[in-house]
C-alpha cells in the first residue's frame, strides 16, 4: 500500500476505481484548428481534462534580448483556468505553471526545426480549461497538434502520456484519485515515429522493473494517441486539394 494506507485505489476484481484495466487509458479526443484567429490551434480532451493550445508565429522575437541569432525561441505559456478545478485557482503565473511552461518549451524545442527561423519567436499558449490529472501531458499533446496545424516544420509530433504506481501496481494514465493518493507518477513526452523521449519527469519511486513496465505502457498509449492526433489533423483537411 502507498503512503495513504487507508485509500483503496484498486478494486477487489483487479480493476481501477473507474473500471479501467491497469493498462487502459482514459478516452482521448482531439480537434485541430478550433481557433480562427490563431495560426494553429488544437483542443484535446483526455478523460476529464480539456486543454486548448494556440500557436502564433513564427514572428519577430520581442523583447530583443530573448532573440537567438541561430534559431527560433519557443515561448510557451501554460496556464490553468481559474475554473479548471473544484478549488478556484488564483489567476496568473505561479511556480508550477512556470515550471511546466519551461519543460514544455524544452520538449517542443527538440522536435521543432528551430534553426529554420533564426531570431524569431514561436508563441505557444496552452490553456487548461478542465483538469483531472496529467494536464502537462495533455498540454504537450495539444501543443504538438497546434504546431503541426500552424505549419511549423517539425521532426516529429510529441505525445504526452503518464503512467504511475498505485498500491504497488503500475498503472497507465493516472486519474485524479490515483494521482493524489498514488505512489508514483511518470509523465513522458514521446516522439511517436522515432520512439525518442523528449521529456521525462518522475514523482515518487519506481523500481527498475516498475519503471520499464511504466514506460512500456507509456509507449503503447503514445501510439494510440498518435493515431488520434494524425486523424485530427487529416480530418481538418479532408476536403482535399484538387
Amino acid at each position, binding site marked *: 500500500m502507498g503512503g495513504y494506507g487507508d485509500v483503496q485505489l484498486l478494486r477487489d476484481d483487479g480493476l481501477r476505481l473507474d473500471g479501467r484495466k491497469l493498462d487502459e487509458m482514459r478516452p482521448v479526443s482531439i480537434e485541430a484548428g478550433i481557433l480562427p484567429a490563431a495560426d494553429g490551434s488544437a483542443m484535446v480532451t483526455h478523460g476529464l481534462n480539456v486543454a486548448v493550445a494556440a500557436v502564433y*508565429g513564427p514572428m519577430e522575437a520581442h523583447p530583443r534580448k530573448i532573440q537567438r541569432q541561430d534559431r527560433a525561441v519557443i515561448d510557451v505559456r501554460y496556464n490553468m483556468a481559474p475554473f479548471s478545478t473544484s478549488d478556484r485557482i488564483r489567476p496568473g503565473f505561479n511556480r508550477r505553471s512556470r515550471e511546466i511552461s519551461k519543460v514544455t518549451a524544452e520538449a517542443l524545442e527538440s522536435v521543432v*526545426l528551430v534553426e529554420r527561423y533564426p531570431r524569431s519567436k514561436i508563441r505557444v499558449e496552452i490553456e487548461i480549461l478542465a483538469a483531472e490529472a496529467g494536464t502537462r501531458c495533455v498540454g504537450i499533446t495539444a501543443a504538438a497538434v497546434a504546431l503541426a496545424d500552424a505549419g511549423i516544420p517539425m*521532426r*516529429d509530433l510529441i505525445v504526452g502520456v503518464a503512467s504511475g504506481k498505485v498500491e504497488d501496481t503500475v498503472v497507465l494514465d493516472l486519474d485524479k484519485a490515483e494521482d493524489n493518493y498514488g505512489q508514483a507518477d511518470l509523465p513522458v513526452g514521446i516522439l511517436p515515429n522515432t520512439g525518442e523521449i523528449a521529456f521525462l519527469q518522475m514523482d515518487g519511486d519506481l523500481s527498475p522493473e516498475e519503471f520499464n513496465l511504466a514506460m512500456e505502457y507509456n509507449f503503447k498509449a503514445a501510439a494510440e494517441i498518435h493515431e488520434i492526433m494524425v486523424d485530427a489533423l487529416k480530418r481538418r483537411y479532408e476536403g482535399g486539394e484538387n
Partner: protein
Amino acid sequence: MGWRFAANGEKEMSNGQNGAELRLVTPGMAIGPSAGMRVGSGALAQNDTIIATRLGWVKELNNTVSVDPINSAYMPRSGDLIVATVAEVRNNLWFMNINGPFQGLLPMSLAPWKVEFGAARQHMGIGDVVLARVQEVDECHNVVLTMKGVGLRRLNQGSVHSVPINHIDRIRGEGNATLQRLREACDCRIIVGENGKVWVDGDAEGTAWARQAIQLIQESGHKNTFEAELTALEKNAPKKGDA
C-alpha cells in the same frame, strides 16, 4: 510496385506521379526510402527514410520528394511584391511588418520620396500600409524592402485582408485569371501581396463582396469544391461593367 509507408493502415502509393493520388502527411511520418531520391522542402532524410516535417500534401517531381504545406509562414524572397505595414519608425528608416517571422527594413534611401534625416515620420507613421518589393534577403534573414519601382506606393485608402500563404495561388488562378474575375465581379482594385496580405479598394458594396470572396478562400481554398463555391458567389456580385 511502390513505396511502403511506415504508418499502419496507409495504402501503397503508385509510381504514377500525376498527382492523382494525393497523400496528406503529418510531421514525422515516413514518406518513403531516401535511396535515389532528393529531398525537397517540407521533408527530411533520416536513416534511409524520407520523413515529412510539415502537415501537407506529398509532391514528387523530378526525383525530388517534397511536402506542399497546408499552412505556412511567409518566407520573404527577393523580388516579392508585398503589402506591408509600418511597425516602427526611426530617424532614417522604417521597420515594416511583412507578415513573416522577421521585420522588413525600409531605409530612407529606398523610399520614393526625398527624405531628410529625422523626417521619416513625416512621410509614414506606424500603421501606414505600403506596397513594396523585397530588395534583398541575406543569409541572416535580414529583409530590406524598397519602394522605388513602378507602382510601389503608400496605400492611402482601401482595406487590407489576409489569406493563407498557400492559398495565394488559388486567389490568383492560372495566369491571374481568378484574380481578374474577382476584380471584374466587384469592380474593385485588388492587389495580392506575396506575403498573404490582400489590398482591396472600391466602393462599399464591392469591398463587402470582395471580403466574402476572401473569406471563402480562407475557409475552403484548399477544397476541391472551391471553384464551384466561387462561381456561386459570383452570381450575386455587384457587377458594374469593366473594372
